[in-house]
């Protein structure tokens, strides 16, 4: 088995996930980690697949779905890297009046303390006059949650956003 990262984008409509995964199934692929979600008016899929033969046969299997649903598809062969074991230990929630620079400002501060973003989701909402930006970041802070709390303090004022920093404790029972 070889691994590839499959990216799919198409105008959102019912049946995209079903068509793509059915095609992968018939091509003897198996699906690993996946993120599938609507972004704007588009539906997006990024997923790790294991495929048994060559990427050409995966593309061929996907072709009818690509044509029928007008999808854009990209396949990148990837080498199987060892999974990094870091579980997220910190959740950073950000919200405020939308303006350019929020994500860059927040993630810049996080990068400076070695924070590894594992997962970031954000949404623009609110009305056209009063746009609202909401972002949730989960990641691993090597120096712990307190280091993140300290790092984001200046941002509140500079960016005019609310920033919450919460520990993520994984409790194994």
């Amino acid at each position, binding site marked *: 088995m070889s691994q590839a990262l499959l990216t799919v984008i198409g105008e959102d409509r019912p049946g995209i996930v079903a068509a793509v995964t059915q095609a992968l199934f018939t091509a003897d692929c198996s699906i690993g980690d996946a993120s599938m979600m609507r972004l704007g008016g588009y539906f997006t899929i990024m997923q790790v697949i294991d495929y048994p033969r060559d990427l050409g046969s995966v593309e061929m299997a996907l072709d009818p779905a690509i044509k029928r649903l007008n999808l854009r598809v990209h396949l990148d062969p990837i080498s199987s890297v060892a999974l990094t074991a870091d*579980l*997220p230990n910190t959740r950073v929630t950000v919200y405020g009046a939308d303006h350019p620079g929020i994500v860059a400002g927040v993630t810049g501060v996080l990068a400076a303390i070695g924070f590894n973003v594992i*997962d970031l*989701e954000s949404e623009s909402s609110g009305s056209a006059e009063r746009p609202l930006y909401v972002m949730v970041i989960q990641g691993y802070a090597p120096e712990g949650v307190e280091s993140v709390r300290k790092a984001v303090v200046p941002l509140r004022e500079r960016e005019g956003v609310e920033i919450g920093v919460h520990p*993520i404790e*994984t*409790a*194994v*029972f």
Partner: protein
Amino acid sequence: MAVLSILTYPDPRLQRKAAPVSVFDDDLHHFVDDLTETMYAGPGGVGIAAPQVDRPQRIVIVDVRPKLGEDCHGLMVLINPELAAWEGMAVGREGCMSVPDFTGNVIRAERIRVQAQDASGRARSYECEGFEARAVQHEMDHLDGLLFLDRLVSRKIDLFRRKNYKK
């Protein structure tokens, strides 16, 4: 005392509903001792339920001292436990000895009052909060054949259901 072997998902025995305990005899005491030892030997070491070791009876043991020190009830032997009251909700990431390697977000009550019997059959009542309350709820789910996998919530819910809405 003995460390018992833990059933892991997808073993169907984890999905049985456990029966109440009615006999509080030496056999029960021995079992409670073994179950406690098994809990301390586990990776989390803070909670265990009898169905996890293939004994479908309503017995839960929780001891969160490894995590919280003395700021908790210590060793709780909860036989035939019932949630008498609960309030608040919090999202937390959980894992389970019966579901190796996977962790996920689960919503639990923040504060609970649990009524149970101890190993001798005496009535007990505990008020728990936070991590200890989460452990008790997680273990009590095993008595009804539920795993935390049955209660997974999406990451997006975290932001909107967090406790500190008050400012």
